[in-house]
Structure formats: C-alpha cells, structure tokens
C-alpha cells in the first residue's frame, strides 16, 4: 500500500489539510502538538476504519461538530490505484473508487490486509524509539519481544504468561507440599486437624454420654437423699404441726361432751328471763288485739242491721221512683201547657159563637150541632142559584114574547160568569169534601155555561121579533125554572134541617152561605178537636198523679202533693243506697274480722303455747325450776362455744377439723404420729441437716456435671466437624483442580510458543538476515541462532565462525540487527499480502549523527520495498531525512520554523495545502 496523497476534511487539528505527491519515504516534521500523532492516527483510520466507530469518544472528532473524514489516493500491490474516502457522521461510511469501479466499504479495513489486524498494525508497524533499543537485555528477552511476542506490543511473551500460570498453580498446590503458602497444604493441614478434632469430638461424645450417665446417677442419688430428708422433715413437721392440734382436738371433744346435744335448746335464747318477759308481753298484746277486733265486729253488725226491709223495698222500687220522678216532671209540664190551651180554646169557642150567630138560630149550641152537610148544601145552593139565574132570562124571553120578560144579554153573561167564579171559589173552599179537580171542572163548566147563556140570550134577543111563535115555550120554560128553583130551595132546607139556620139565610141562599157554612163547620171541628185534646191531657195527668200516688203509697211516703211524694221517695232511695253501701262494707269487714279474730286468737294461743313449751323445754334440763335450768343451759352453751371457737381456729388455719382429726387418728394408729421427746427432735433435726448438706454436695456435683456436659455440648460436634471437613474437601478438590488447570494452561502456552517459534523463527531470521545483509551492505549475510537458541550469531560471508550478536559488537550494528528483525517480522506477517506503510516515531531522536545517518540510509532502503513515514519533531532529523531522499511534510506553518529551536524548513518535498 502506497499513500500518494492524504486529504483531510476534518480530523483533529488537521482540518482542511492536504498532503499531495507523497514519496515512498516521507519525513513528517512538526513540533509537539503540530499534528504528527493526528496524522499517524488518520493513516490508521484510513486503512482500518474509524476507531472508535462513533464520533462520541473518538479523540479526533471535530469539537465544533464539523464534518469528520477525508480521503487518500492509494496504490495497492496489484498496481491498482484509487481513492479511499472515509466519513464519520452519525455512523461511519467509506468508499473505494478505482477508475470506473466503485464500492462501499463502510468502516471495514481496505482489502488485502490479511492477518494484519489494527492491533497488529499499531503494535508492529508503528514503531517508537524504544521498540528498536535493547540496551542491556539478553537475547532471550529480545527474542521474546521480537519473535515470542510476535513483536506485538499487547502480547506478553509466552514465557512470562506460562511462568505466571505456573506460579498461580503453585500457590494452590505443589508436589510434596513444600511451600507453606500453598493453599492445598493449608487445607490438608486443616483437614488433618479436623481428623484430630473429629476424634476428639467422638471422644467428647462418649464422654458426654458418660457424663450424662453420671449425672443420671447423681440425679437418682439426689432423689433418694431428697426422699429421706423429706421423710425426716416430714416427721418433724408432722409432729410440729399435729401434736398441738391433737391436744386442741382433745379439748374440743371434752367441751363438746360437756355441752352435749344442744340442738333441742337451740331456740332458747341466751337471756331466758328477757325472753319470758317478752313472751308475756306478746301474749297480752295478742289478747288486746282479739278484743279490739271483737268490738269492731259488733259495730259492723249494727251497721248491717240498719239496712232494713223498707230500705231494701226502696232499692227494689228504684225504677218506680225514677218513673215517679219522670211522671212528676211530665205532669208539671203538662199542667203548664193545659192552662194555655184552655185559654186558647175558650177564645176559639167564642169566635165560633160569633160566627154561628150570623147563621144559626141558636148560636150557643153550635158546638152541639151535628155535622153540617156543607157539600150537599153547596150543591143545593148551586142548583137553586142556577135555577134562580135562569129565571130572569126566561122571564125576559117570556116578557118579549108576552109571556115573560127576558134579561138583557149583558146581565145574563154576568150571571153566568159569576156562577163560574163561585164554582171556582168553591173549588178551593170545599177542598176537603170534593176532589178539587171536579170543582175546577165544575167552575169551568159554569163559566162556559155563562158564556153559552150569553150567546143564547143574544140569539134570543136577536130572534125575538122573528120568533113570536115561541112564547109559549118560553113560558113553559119559565115555569119550569120556577119550579126547579123552588125544588132546589126545598132540597136545601131539607139538607140543613138539623142546623137550625136563620130563616133569613134561607130566603135567597147563595154561595156566601155555602162558604159561611163551610167556615162554621170547620170552626166547630177545630173547637171539638181542641176540647178533645185538653181532655186527653187532663186524663194523662190524672194517670200520672195516680202512679205517683200509688208509688208513694207503696213506699209509705205518700204526701199531699205529687212533688213532695216524689221528693220523699227519692230521699228514701238515697238513704237506702247509703245503707246498702254500709251494709256491704260492713259485711266485707265482718268477713275479714272473722278471719282476723280467728288468727289473733290462734296467735294468742300460740304465744301461750310457746311460752309454755319454752318453760317445759327449759325444765326438761332437769335442774329444777326455770331459773336453775337457765343457769345450767348457759354453762353447757359456754362449753359448746369454746369447742366451736377451737374448731374455727383450726379451720381458719386452712385445715379441715375432720380431715385433721382423721389424719391424726390414722397416723396415730400407724404409729407415725408419736409424741417426740426433745432428744428425739434434736436427733431428727441433725439428720435433716446432714441430708441437706449431702444434697448441697450433690447439687454441686450435678452442677459440675451439667457444666461439663454444657461445655462438651458447646464444643463442635462430629457433624459440625464433618461438615467443615466436607467443605474443606470440596475446597481442596477445587484448589487441586485449579492448580491442574493452571499447570495445563502453562504447558499449553509453552508448547504453543515453542511451536510458534519453530514455525516462524527460521523465516523471521532468514528475512532479518536478508535485511541485515541489505542494510549492512553485505558485511554480514546471515543471522543464526546460537547453541540451544540461547544466542543470536552474525555470520560474515566466508567467515570461519559466527559472531555473537551482542556486545562488544558496535551499537550501530545492534541497531541494525534489531531494525532488521522488526522488518523481518513485518515481512513475515504480511506473507505475500499488502506491504503496509511503516510509521516511525522519532526512532532516531537520540542517535548520534553517524548512527542517525546509517539509520536514515536503512529507512531509505526500506522505502524501496514499502512506504516509510518518519515522524520527527527535530528539524535536523527532518533535513537529514530529506537529504537521505525523503519527501518532507512540514506540519508547522511554512517559514515558521520547527519546534525545539530547529532550522527553518524547506517544504519542497511535501506541499501543504491549506
């Protein structure tokens, strides 16, 4: 790969810079910070792609966010020439264009780099001064660095790695466990300790069992001692507790015997005299109560007697009394009414007489008249009037015809109309005698008849002159009318024959008469009705009086007037009621009193009997009289009290008297409770103390045993130790396995290294010899490994023997050897692939002039085979390189001079394009 031009768009400090027409040997000059390292990095990124492949973290990404990347014109080993472009935007991109061919390569390395990875390139192709200096090191170190590590900076010599693995393995395990720090040995030692500890634990376990058994024995011994001690203490305690009780019980029994059975005298109080006085007082009180009740009974009986037959009758007749009172009220009301009515009737009868006076011949007897045939009379009057009214017409007709005289037509009509009116009036007046509608019809007919008569009269008048021949007929009619008139009047008189009417009223009877008769008849009837009602009321009052009188008579309280009679009856009834209430009340009380008296009498008897019984019971003590017996009872009771008090004392101590007595009895029977002498008590106390002491000793022994057992239990048990052993065995196995692994890996590394050397060393040495012969101008033509590969030898052409590549040969020769070895390695790695540019970073900085010139000569020669970039900060080196044929790239501003005080630069070899 030859880089003919390098152009930068943006890459660190090289933004916008371009390096054109680059030679195969390029000296890049620039003071520190001028961009030498940047250019070296850009060349690597051009060949391998951006690393890292993101702007973030890339050391040369433009800080202002500007475009990053650039291009290079590259010539490949195949002779192909093209332009390689790389950009790093959001992601890296790349392209290769050669003639018309174009391809995208993204961020991949360019083709043909083979096994030369970026790391390898960085390590081997980019050389610094120290990579070519091995001032005091042995060949084996040089060999490790150059060949064993493949010259890679990152790769440690295999020997070192293998040694390290061996060391790691030996820290874990060593044969025979020689080292103290070996982990396996430490574990094994602990395991051996644990074997011993396990044995000890097993021994402890046996000891523990033994101690447990010993403790068990001590426990049994303690139990036996305790039992014995308890027996002694129990005997002492028994004696101490029961003997006083036994005396107490004996005394109680003695007292109880003296007291005897006082059950029968339980009711007899302590103060007999007071009791007897109280009993007598009680008896007297009972007797007084009986007497008082008896007196009340008599009083009550008197009260009952007052409710006699008369009062009972009054109560029985209370309905009648109530009725009499009612009758009285009605009577008085009716009497007041009658006065008014009588007055009214007298007036009405006076009016009747007045009415009768206009009609009757004997008006005073009007009331005694039979019923007036008013209807018939009216009919007769009508008939008469009808006949009477026809007559003038007929007389007029007859007069006109000579036989009679006719009524003027206007008068006839008036008569007819009057008749109709009368009939209609009768219709209303004689309402009760005839059906109204018949009278109405009659009235109407009369009016019609009058109308007809009027017409006839007019006709007759009109025909008078023309009908003279009818005169006779008219006269006949007149006669007939007169007859009819007389007949009607006669009939009227007959009808009113019993009424004794004034004759004057019968001369020309008319409707007025009929009306007056009707009015009179009605008045008569009203008077008769009034008289009847008054008579009825008077009759009722009489009956009432009779009833009141009868009731009063029956009850024996009859008085002059009904009102007084009734008042007396009511008073009697009230009296009877009160008497009855008292009677009943007294009756109830008497019933109670009967019971009370019986009870009181019984109580009185009981009190007497009690007192008597009390005295009998007291006397039954047999001490003589009541006083002596009382004294005896008191003494026996005192004995009982003492016995009870003693029992109470026992029981208040929490003991049951019976149980205690029974216990004492049984213990006495068995001989366990015996009276102890002082000597015996002392001996028992001493035995108790001895046993207590023995128990204390036993307790101490047991505590010691327990402590021993506890101590033994606290120690690790077999299982615990065995657990640790298991864990350690696992640990040991792991350590041994790891050691084997480390040893195996060390063997693998050594074997791989040997194989690598065997495979590559001859080729590298051959190539190095070639380079060495080349750079030494043929002074030496071979490099060979010394015996056992422990040294490197130089062999001049046709020399008799090899010259060791070590001091005292010149430093310059050694420099050449090392450089050739590195170049040989590069060639070896490329093995027919692309020859990549070598990047030398001030490798000649500290070399003297002669050595530097030889070095530059070598680089010049190397550049014949591959492109060489020599980066330097020293202008004299740059100039020397230029002299040696290198093209010069000045990274410092033109004419600005080099850093470090170097001479001004001539930029002929490299053109800097802003």
């Amino acid at each position: 790969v030859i880089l003919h031009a390098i152009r930068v768009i943006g890459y660190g400090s090289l933004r916008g810079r371009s390096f054109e027409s680059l030679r195969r040997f390029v000296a890049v000059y620039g003071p520190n910070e001028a961009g030498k390292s940047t250019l070296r990095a850009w060349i690597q990124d051009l060949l391998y792609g951006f690393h890292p492949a993101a702007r973030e973290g890339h050391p040369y990404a433009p800080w202002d966010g500007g475009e990053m990347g650039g291009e290079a014109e590259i010539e490949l080993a195949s002779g192909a020439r093209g332009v390689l472009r790389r950009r790093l935007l959001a992601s890296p991109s790349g392209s290769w264009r050669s003639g018309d061919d174009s391809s995208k390569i993204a961020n991949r390395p360019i083709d043909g780099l083979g096994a030369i990875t970026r790391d390898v390139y960085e390590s081997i192709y980019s050389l610094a001064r120290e990579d070519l200096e091995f001032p005091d090191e042995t060949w084996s170190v040089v060999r490790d660095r150059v060949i064993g590590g493949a010259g890679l900076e990152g790769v440690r010599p295999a020997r070192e790695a293998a040694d390290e693995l061996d060391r790691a393995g030996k820290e874990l395990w060593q044969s025979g466990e020689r080292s103290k720090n070996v982990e396996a040995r430490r574990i094994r030692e602990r395991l051996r300790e644990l074997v011993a500890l396990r044995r000890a634990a097993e021994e402890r376990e046996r000891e523990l069992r033994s101690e447990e058994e010993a403790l068990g024995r001590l426990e049994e011994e303690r139990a036996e001692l305790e039992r014995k001690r308890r027996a002694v203490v129990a005997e002492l305690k028994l004696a101490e507790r029961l003997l006083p009780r036994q005396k107490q019980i004996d005394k109680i029994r003695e007292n109880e015997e003296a007291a005897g059975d006082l059950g029968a005298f339980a009711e007899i109080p302590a103060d007999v005299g007071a009791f007897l006085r109280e009993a007598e007082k009680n008896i007297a009180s009972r007797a007084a109560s009986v007497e008082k009740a008896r007196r009340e009974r008599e009083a009550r009986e008197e009260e009952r007697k007052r409710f006699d037959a008369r009062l009972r009758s009054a109560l029985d007749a209370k309905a009648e009394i109530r009725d009499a009172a009612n009758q009285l009220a009605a009577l008085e009301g009716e009497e007041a009414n009658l006065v008014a009515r009588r007055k009214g009737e007298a007036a009405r009868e006076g009016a009747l007489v007045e009415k009768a006076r206009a009609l009757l011949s004997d008006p005073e007897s009007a009331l005694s008249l039979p019923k007036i045939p008013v209807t018939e009379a009216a009919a007769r009057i009508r008939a008469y009037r009808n006949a009477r009214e026809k007559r003038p017409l007929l007389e007029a007709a007859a007069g006109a015809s000579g036989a009679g005289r006719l009524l003027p037509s206007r008068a006839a009509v008036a008569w007819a109309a009057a008749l109709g009116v009368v009939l209609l009036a009768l219709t209303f007046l004689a309402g009760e005698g005839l059906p109204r509608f018949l009278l109405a019809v009659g009235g109407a007919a009369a009016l019609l008849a009058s109308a007809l008569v009027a017409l006839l009269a007019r006709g007759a008048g009109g025909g008078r002159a023309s009908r003279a021949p009818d005169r006779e007929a008219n006269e006949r009619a007149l006669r007939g009318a007169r007859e009819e008139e007389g007949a009607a009047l006669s009939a009227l008189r007959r009808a009113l024959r019993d009424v004794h009417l004034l004759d004057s009223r019968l001369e020309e009877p008319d409707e007025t008469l009929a009306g007056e008769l009707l009015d009179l008849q009605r008045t008569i009837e009203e008077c008769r009705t009034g008289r009847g009602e008054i008579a009825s009321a008077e009759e009722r009052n009489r009956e009432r009086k009779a009833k009141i009188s009868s009731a009063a008579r029956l009850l024996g309280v009859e008085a002059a007037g009904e009102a007084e009679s009734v008042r007396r009856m009511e008073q009697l009834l009230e009296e009877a009621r009160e008497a009855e209430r008292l009677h009943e009340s007294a009756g109830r009380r008497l019933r109670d009193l009967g019971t009370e008296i019986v009870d009181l009498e019984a109580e009185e008897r009981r009190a007497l009997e009690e007192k008597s019984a009390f005295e009998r019971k007291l006397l039954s003590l047999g001490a003589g009289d009541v006083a002596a017996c009382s004294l005896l009872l008191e003494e026996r009771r005192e004995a009982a009290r003492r016995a009870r008090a003693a029992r109470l004392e026992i029981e208040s101590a929490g003991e049951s008297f019976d149980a205690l007595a029974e216990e004492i009895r049984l213990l006495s029977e068995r001989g366990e409770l015996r009276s102890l002498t002082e000597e015996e008590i002392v001996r028992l106390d001493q035995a108790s103390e001895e046993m207590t002491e023995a128990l204390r000793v036993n307790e101490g022994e047991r505590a010691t045993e327990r402590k021993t057992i506890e101590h033994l239990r606290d120690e690790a048990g077999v299982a615990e130790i065995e657990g640790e052993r298991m864990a350690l065995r696992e640990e040991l196995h792991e350590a041994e396995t790891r050691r084997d692994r480390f040893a195996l890996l060390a063997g693998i590394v050594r074997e791989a290294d040997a194989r690598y050397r065997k495979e590559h060393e001859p080729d590298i040495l051959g190539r190095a010899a070639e380079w060495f012969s080349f750079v030494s101008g043929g002074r030496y033509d071979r490099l060979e490994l010394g015996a056992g590969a422990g040294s490197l030898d130089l062999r001049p052409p046709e020399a008799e023997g090899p010259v060791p590549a070590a001091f005292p040969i010149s430093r310059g020769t050694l420099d050449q050897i090392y450089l050739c070895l590195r170049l040989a390695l590069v060639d070896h790695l490329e093995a027919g692939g692309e020859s990549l540019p070598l990047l030398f970073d001030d490798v000649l900085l500290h070399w003297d002039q002669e050595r530097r010139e030889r070095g530059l000569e070598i680089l010049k020669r190397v550049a014949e085979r591959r492109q060489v970039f020599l980066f330097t900060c020293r202008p004299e080196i740059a100039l020397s390189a230029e002299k040696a044929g290198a093209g010069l790239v000045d990274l410092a501003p033109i004419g600005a001079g080099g850093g470090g005080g170097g001479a001004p630069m001539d930029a002929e070899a490299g053109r800097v394009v802003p």
Partner: protein
Amino acid sequence: MTGFRFVHLADAHLDAPFASGSPDVRKLLAESLRRSFQGAVDIALDERVHAFLIAGDLVESPEPSLSAEHFLLGQLRRLSEASIPVFYGTGNHDPLAVRTGGRRIDWPKGVTVYTRGEPLRSEVLGPSGEPIAQVTGAGHERAEVGENLAARFPAAAGPLPEVALLHASVEGTKDLDPRERYAPCSARDLRGKGYDYWALGHVHKRHAALDDPAAHYPGSILGLDRTEIGEKGVLLVEIVRGEPPRVEFRRTAPVVREEMEVDVREAASVEALRRLLHERILALGDPRSTLLTVRLAGTSPLKPDLERKEDLRELEEGLAGEIGLAHLSLRTQDLRCAVDLGRVRVGPLAAALDLVAALREGTASFDPVAPAELAGIAPAGAAERDRYLRSLLDGAEEEIARRMWKEGP
C-alpha cells in the same frame, strides 16, 4: 369418607454434616434439619393421622450424637403420647436401626422398627382399637444392600388399605448416583404386589416413582447439599380403598436451597454486578429462608476480580446482608473472561488458542502440555487422565488470552 391417613417421611439424615458456607450457615442448617423433622411431627399431630411412616435414613449415621438421640426420642415421644404409631424401615445410612453408644435405642411405645430385609406386616389400629390398615416394611441390614428387597414383599391381601414401606432405588430414578443404587428394584416389582401405596425412601428429590400403584419418594426433609434445591418436607397421604391415594406435599423445611443463573455480561464493574444480582435475587421472593447459589454466567471483565476469594466473599456477604438472604454463594466456574478472541488471535497467542482447540477436539496430545503430576485425580490411565484434563479446558482460551494479552482483554 375418611380413609387411612399417614405422614410419609424419608431421608431425614438427622445429624447430617453440612459443607455449605460459614460455620453460622452450617449451624442454621443443622437447626433447620431438626425443625423440619419437628414440623413433620407437628403435621402428624395437627392432622390427627393414623400413622407416621419413616422410609429409612432417619439419621446420617447409625450412631448419632447424644443430642440428636434426645431430639429424635423427644419427637417420637410426642407421637407416642398422641397414640400415633410410628413405622420405621431402616436405610443404608441407618442399617439395623439407630444405635446409641453401641446400645439399641429404647424406642417409645408405638414405634415399630423394620431392620431386616425380610418384610414384616403390622396392623395399624384405629382409635377404638380396630384394625384400619396394614403396613408391611423391610429394612437394610447393612450399609450397601444390593438385593432386591421389594421383590421379597408378600402380595397384599385383605380388605384393609395396605402400605409397603421400603428404602430402595426404583430403576429409572434420575439424579441418583449409580454407586448408591441400594436395594434396587423395578417398577414391575412394585406393581405386582397389590399394595395401595409404596412409601419409599432413598432418593432425596421428591417425586412419584410410579402412579399405579402409587409409589412416592417424599425426598429429604431439608436441602442437604447445594444440589438439593426447592421446598422440602413430607407427604400427607390418605388411602380410601378403591380410590387412588390422595398424596399432598407439606413443606416442613424452614429454609430452602435455591439455585439460579445470572448472565452478568452487562455488568462492567463490581458495583454494577452487585446491583444486577440484587435486582435478580429480589425477584425470587422471600429471601430470609433461602440459601441461594447463583451461577454467574456469560463473559465478564470481572472474572479476575471474582476469582479472588476475599473479593468474592465480600460480595457474597454484602449482598446477602443487603437482601436478607440466609446465605448466598456465588459460583464463578461458568464465568468466562471477556476476551475478543478474534482480536487477540495473533502470534504465539493464536498458536496457544489453536492448541487448546486441538486438545479439546482430541487432535492434539496432552502429553507435551500436561503437568507431570496431577493434583486433582489419583494416578490413572491415559484415557481417564485425558478426560480429566479436557474437563479443565473450559474457558481456557479466555484464560490464556487474559494471561498473554498485556493490556488486558
């Protein structure tokens, strides 16, 4: 309808040693083992079962410590006082039953111990003294019984529920070291006998060896080592003749072991790793009763740090303390160094990586690379040695690269 109800327990391994963690954790485990057994007895009393069956390996060794003996007898006495009969068939850890100080143990009333290989039949009596079930049991007479004891069991007969009690290895059982296949038997041996239930012991993982007839391993009552993960306890069984037995697991272990794998490739620092683990472990649930093993997996630049025991322990203890775990163990065996093997495949390092591949594939010999003396296995044949050495190659490439790459992988 109530049938024959019993607690089925096995592999209590009382007094078992615990290799896990610190002395405190071992003490916790030892206490938990007893509490688990006590829990089983509590269940029997609470549920008023008719019997308590122990299918072998009651204790870790036939002669347990005095403390274990006191504990065991105390618990059995509780059952005895509740008139719950105990049927105990010995296993390979307690052949011929528990002895103390060379003496036979004085079992409480109601404990029937089967110590002989010849099965014996026992009646289980109900509350009113009537027989309610039959238990036929056999025991191991020595530590390594190779005979098929199940085959010796008589056929079940009679109307009562019949239970067989045996510490045995039923063929086909996974997770069982072939070297520990004691009293081996086949499913056919169990099927042909007509028992309603085979109360088995020996396999520490709870599972049904057979469904018909029901043959169950209740598993150990506590995770005895870190491989025995999950809840541990006993089986509460009820048998009603003519119906499949009802088998219910009851946890008794106060602490459980759990294991999880955490890919730690995202954790770039020890602090990030601590946070990641904290988050993942908290998701487990109640940590207080958990002894957790976390297998760190994936590639990590922290591998070298985590290989330092002190650093690893500090991380374990710190996390366990923060989260409240009973115990935390971080295993780094599966962890790989974070190495870009493609990048470092240069020079002699590439040769070493190629050689590892060839050794793993068997195309290269271990002879030139193997250490003359191996610590991890006893001198063995070439095949066994190579197998062992090949097992050491896990992560070898990353390890070599880490060792040979100066700047760190």
